[in-house]
């Protein structure tokens, strides 16, 4: 009976291990396939074409150029290598302005032909219409539609997923924002975190420690939206006054909030690691005549390095992946930040803010999954660093 029970437990443990791994692999696979799907999407919104007059020689436009044309920032075909002609744009929503109900037909059966003839009669017109609407042999030219290229996405400097007709998916501003905020967050959190941990494990009396530890751990239980709100009404106006900024929502506000949020993780893990430093090591150091401080920074800290490092990484992990607090205080402007005092937008905040509206399966949806893949690689890289640090440390301690 006992043996049977032991076997059963063993099988259950193995089974749950396998299931967990399989689920994680499935999730990663799902993330990657959805993300990679972006590169199979056309530049112009799916199912739509950009129709030109027959006489217009322009055949290719980049996504950024298409956006500029429809925003009326580019107003002449000359700028795109075409003839010296004013650009006229036509969207399907404009149909009511050009045609009457009769011209379109009661069931819009004539809409395609009407639009085609409209484009034919205006040499400078570019029309953004559904492909299904265009009649056969319309005598029009179309902008060649290519797929979204990895270069445009990974090297693009503009994130504009809702732009019509051609959304822009340059991830550089988001990537820069995420790294920038996390870097500063960890720069703030690290010195404070380590010193609190040292104080609590080495200096503080048992009573102070008994009070301080639960309080710091309590910080972990506060919902992140509360931190965000605190940041918005306290930290943001404070920064605005201290630095005389026109706008207080900035990367700095985000990194201060993140530093506060990462503190409990760093403190708890680092403190546990230091307290677990073998008594024999401390006693040996003191016996050799080292002072208390020398013992702390020459013996205790180095020997608990791997614990401190994992605390720091868990803290970074929280900072990189944090969504709501950052969403509220960084201003979410999708520009590459030149300094930490400027508004910026992070990857998790983008996913959280935009996934709700992105139609499932579309280019915008897939681009958000691609952002998830990139976030995955960032955390993966950080984990590799920790592995490296702690393994080196273990080798040294031996």
């Amino acid at each position: 009976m006992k043996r049977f029970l032991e076997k059963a437990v063993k099988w259950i443990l193995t089974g749950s291990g396998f299931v967990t791994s399989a689920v994680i692999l499935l999730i990663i696979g799902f993330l990657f396939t959805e993300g990679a799907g972006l590169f199979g999407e056309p530049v112009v919104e799916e199912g739509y074409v950009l129709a030109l007059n027959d006489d217009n020689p322009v055949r290719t436009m980049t996504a950024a150029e298409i956006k500029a044309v429809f925003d009326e920032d580019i107003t002449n075909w000359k700028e795109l290598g075409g003839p010296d002609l004013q650009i006229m744009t036509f969207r399907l929503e404009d149909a009511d302005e050009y045609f009457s109900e009769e011209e379109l037909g009661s069931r819009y059966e004539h809409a395609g032909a009407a639009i085609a003839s409209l484009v034919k009669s205006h040499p400078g017109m570019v029309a953004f219409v559904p492909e299904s609407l265009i009649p056969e042999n319309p005598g029009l030219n179309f902008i060649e539609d290519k797929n979204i290229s990895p270069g445009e996405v990974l090297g693009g400097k503009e994130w504009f997923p809702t732009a019509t007709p051609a959304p822009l998916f340059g991830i550089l501003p988001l990537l820069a924002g995420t790294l920038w905020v996390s870097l500063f967050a960890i720069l703030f959190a690290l010195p404070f975190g380590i010193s609190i941990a040292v104080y609590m494990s080495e200096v503080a009396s048992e009573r102070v420690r008994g009070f301080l530890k639960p309080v710091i751990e309590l910080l972990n239980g506060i919902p992140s939206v509360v931190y965000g709100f605190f940041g918005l009404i306290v930290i943001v106006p404070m920064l605005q006054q201290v630095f005389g900024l026109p706008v207080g929502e900035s990367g700095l506000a985000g990194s201060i909030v993140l530093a506060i949020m990462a503190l409990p993780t760093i403190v708890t893990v680092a403190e546990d690691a230091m307290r677990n430093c073998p008594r024999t090591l401390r006693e040996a150091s003191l016996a050799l005549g080292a002072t208390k401080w020398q013992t702390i920074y020459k013996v205790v800290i180095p020997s608990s390095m791997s614990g401190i490092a994992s605390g720091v990484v868990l803290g970074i992990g929280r900072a990189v992946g944090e969504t709501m607090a950052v969403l509220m205080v960084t201003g979410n402007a999708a520009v590459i930040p030149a300094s930490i005092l400027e508004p910026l937008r992070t990857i998790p905040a983008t996913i959280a803010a935009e996934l709700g509206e992105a139609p499932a399966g579309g280019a915008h949806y897939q681009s958000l999954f691609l952002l998830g893949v990139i976030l995955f690689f960032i955390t993966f890289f950080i984990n590799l660093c920790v592995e490296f640090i702690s393994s080196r440390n273990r080798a040294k301690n031996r």
Partner: protein
Amino acid sequence: MKRTAVLTILCVLLLQGVSSAQRVKGSDTLLPLTQELAEQYLEKHPESEIIVTGGGSGVGIAALPENTTDIAMASRRIKFGEKMKFAEIGLDAREVIVAYDALAVVVNPSNPVDSLTREQLEAIFRGKITNWKEVGGEDWKIVVYSRETSSGTYEFFKESVLDNKNYMSSILSMPATGAIIQSVKQTKGAIGYIGLAYLNRFVKPLSVSYDGGRHYAEPSVRTAADGSYPIVRPLYYYYDAEKESIVSPFVSYVLSDEGQASVLEQGFVPVREETSDTSGKLTSVR
């Protein structure tokens, strides 16, 4: 394939057999209002049943031809493409405006500027004007706040004020109306847009002109209702003309004085403020 079809038919039959519940689906802007109205309606007509769900204007309109809703709520007008889809299957949809929602453009109370034209607003939100002195204010940098892209307000402001052009990419996007008010309140050079119902003393609403500066109107329930304030969006119900007999008791309750009183209570502009010309009447989509 065949099995799915049979199952679907069974489900539909079952659903129809259970009750003659009216299903209302769509815009999240209209959701709280419609829920409130439905509750009031049910108090008076305990025998009927109304199920109200959100999901967004697009979801509601898409559900209409699929017959998964009886009334579609929409915070925007039906799009040309959607109308074409209706026409393809021969659906004759009716449109009724149930309330109006006005957007107020707000600045910090310390800002001396108190009116702007649509062209100036467009230039500001597209990043072409970056300093308040260009529109007759102090030498302050303009800090532009917008809602997140998932918001219907974002879309409507883009359509109405930006003339369908895109916002500048360096715009600060906030997750909620409350966050916009908070930021505008504490930032000297700030400008943002919020629903009329959210106006309070911490932010200053701007008068807006859509005719190049000849007439400015301040946002209020009155100016929105009489049409002098331009940034107003109608909120619609759409339904199949064939189902008129089923849905009309509820729709007419919404349009009744009592229904419109709760429209006002919820911070929207009623359709029956003293001057109502086309509003409130039933019109065919085409």
